[in-house]
């Protein structure tokens, strides 16, 4: 019986962590290039709405994903226009995107679907495929390891595996390619990149473009895999949690992945322990579920304060680059 519990915990950890991983990768990209992204929450919400609306109206999965990516790119380019080209405040820009998206998705949702801001439940044709379901079912009969792998790791949405693969891709991009070196240099010392004859603006726009696409994938996951439809404010702080995970992972894709898995696990455990009773050794009483839910944020604060290791932000983070004349 225990292996079933381990398997389901593993499965819900992965499911909760997936949008976090995608958003954390998005912010790793932009922050490594020197652009703070507090707009993850808004980008994810807006792209989720775009995907769900187009899916509901057209019934086409490809169009839905395309719409989400288009919206994600558009928001990221606006981000770049304000903060890279016009040196606007990056923190304020993130707030602006998040606040506008929270309002606009509801306004448009009510106007288009008349269901209080929700989209209608999406048809099966636009749901993302589940992978390895047959293998998972077969493995469940194998005791212990088979059950854990079968329930926990197999039969998830294609984007769960996609997100894990993207961690490797982003790591490879940032640490094993010339482009990645330049991107990271842009976040540390943009003047040097400029002196080497490479466009700081170009690199930051490029990082933001990648950021927009990754946020769009997270938005797609929310409506095409995790939930059957768009619901107002459905991101519910996940964008900020992804930001925390990215920081907790010390601005590194693999670190971010581990942090997202930890935060996902805490969330899965918190849901499971709702209403459970503490063992008598710990004083009895209800398990403080809220404490578990707040733990990711507490851990991030403690890490940032330098009490558990050190997290160094890219040196030029949040500073607009002014080309000297």
């Amino acid at each position, binding site marked *: 019986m225990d292996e079933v519990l381990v398997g389901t915990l593993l499965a819900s950890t992965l499911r909760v962590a997936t949008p976090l991983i995608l958003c954390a990768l998005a912010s790793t990209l932009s922050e490594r290039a020197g652009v703070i992204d507090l707009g993850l929450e808004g980008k994810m919400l807006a792209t989720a709405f775009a995907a769900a609306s187009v899916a509901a109206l057209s019934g086409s999965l490809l169009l839905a994903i395309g719409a989400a990516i288009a919206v994600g790119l558009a928001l990221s380019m606006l981000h770049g226009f304000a903060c890279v080209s016009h040196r606007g405040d990056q923190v304020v820009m993130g707030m*602006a995107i998040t606040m506008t*998206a929270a*309002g*606009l998705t509801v*306004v448009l949702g009510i106007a288009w679907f008349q269901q209080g801001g929700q989209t209608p439940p999406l048809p099966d044709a636009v749901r993302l495929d589940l992978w390895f379901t047959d293998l998972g079912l077969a493995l469940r009969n194998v005791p212990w390891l088979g059950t854990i792998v079968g329930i926990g790791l197999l039969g998830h949405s294609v984007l769960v595996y996609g997100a894990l693969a993207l961690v490797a891709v982003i790591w490879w991009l940032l640490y094993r390619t010339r482009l990645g070196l330049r991107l990271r240099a842009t976040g540390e010392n943009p003047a040097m990149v400029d002196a080497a004859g490479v466009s700081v603006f170009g690199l930051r726009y490029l990082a933001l473009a990648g950021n927009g696409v990754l946020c769009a994938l997270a938005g797609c996951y929310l409506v095409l895999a995790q939930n059957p439809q768009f619901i*107002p404010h459905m991101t519910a702080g996940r964008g*900020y949690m992804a930001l925390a995970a990215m920081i907790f992972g010390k601005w590194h894709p693999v670190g971010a992945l581990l942090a997202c898995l930890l935060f996902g696990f805490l969330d899965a455990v918190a849901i499971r322990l709702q209403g459970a009773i503490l063992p008598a050794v710990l004083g009895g009483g209800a398990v403080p579920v809220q404490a578990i839910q707040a733990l990711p944020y507490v851990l991030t604060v403690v890490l*940032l304060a330098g009490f558990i290791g050190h997290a160094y*932000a890219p040196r030029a983070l949040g500073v607009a680059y002014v080309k000297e004349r």
Partner: protein
Amino acid sequence: MSRPVELPRWLDLVVLPLVNLAMAFAVSAVVLVAVGQDPVKVLALLVKGAFGSRAGISYTLYYATTFVFTGLAVAVAFHGGLFNIGGEGQAMMGGLGAGLVALGLAHTLPAWLLLPLMVLVAIVFGMAWAAVPGVLQAWRGSHIVITTIMFNFIASALLIYLLVNVIKEPGNMTPESRAFGPAAQLPGLHEMLGWVGLDWPRTPLNFSVLLAVAAAGGVYLLLWRSQPGYALRTVGHAPDAAHYAGIRPQVQIVRAMALSGGLAALVGINEIAGVHNRLMADFVAGAGFTGIAVSLIGRNHPLGIVLAALLFGALYQGGAELAFEIQGFSRDMVFTLQGLIVLFAGAMSQVAAPWLARAWQALRRRFPAVMEHGHG
């Protein structure tokens, strides 16, 4: 803050915010047309809802009270060189402080003693909650924006935990406390006007509105007319110069954050002591974020903030009325406008400035005499 072209002061302080505001309204009008509504009609009804009746004006002022507190909170931190996004959490803590005092002492203390105590404890709770990110920034170098965001979530979790497990009335399904009783209720404005024989409709507008006016005046005097305020602003504008002049930036950072948190905490007084008379989970409802927009439009000055808070109060009240009047209109339109205002007046404020400067210079070339007069 380098600006390519120097704008005259009045253009920078008055016209530029208005231009940015106009752009946000213009985009909102486009959205309204896109969802099949008539922007002119919406605006007319909005103004009527916000100012068309005594009750409407009262509600507008009630919302504005909350926004003055959160707007001032953002502005004070800003003058200390800090971006406090934690107004939401600090306001929750303020409400928690006031609520705990009321729950504990409402039946032992008379109102004249209990209410000031609630205000005081609310401020102390908010100050303490904001001071922690301040200390972490000052001495441990953690980024204040990130820490205050995290503290919003932690505050929310803490408040819900306390409400669900400790404070909640047995048998009540919603996470809220029992009613505090009359001793912990701030007088409503209708009552206060009643004492002097004036008749006024019963609305949530309460004594806190006077606190808001006092807070705005106090912040002005503190920041621009006192030595501690000067030290705070110096650290915000030129930390190195401040350090050289013998001002310790660390202390000023914590001071600015504590002051900011204390101001945000007063939202708890307006809502918990002024209206609901009980502690609940979601009384802040995004006011901390609205404070960012208020402070941006008000250019971080108390007078500007009061005006901007009135604007937002009118938008919230007018929006609520519109939701009744027009089929399919949602208050979220107001939230959209709020986001657009942060976009145009905050992140993209530099976009309009050079354009405005060019227009100004063209005008000066064409009408030198008039402009010289206007300049003097």
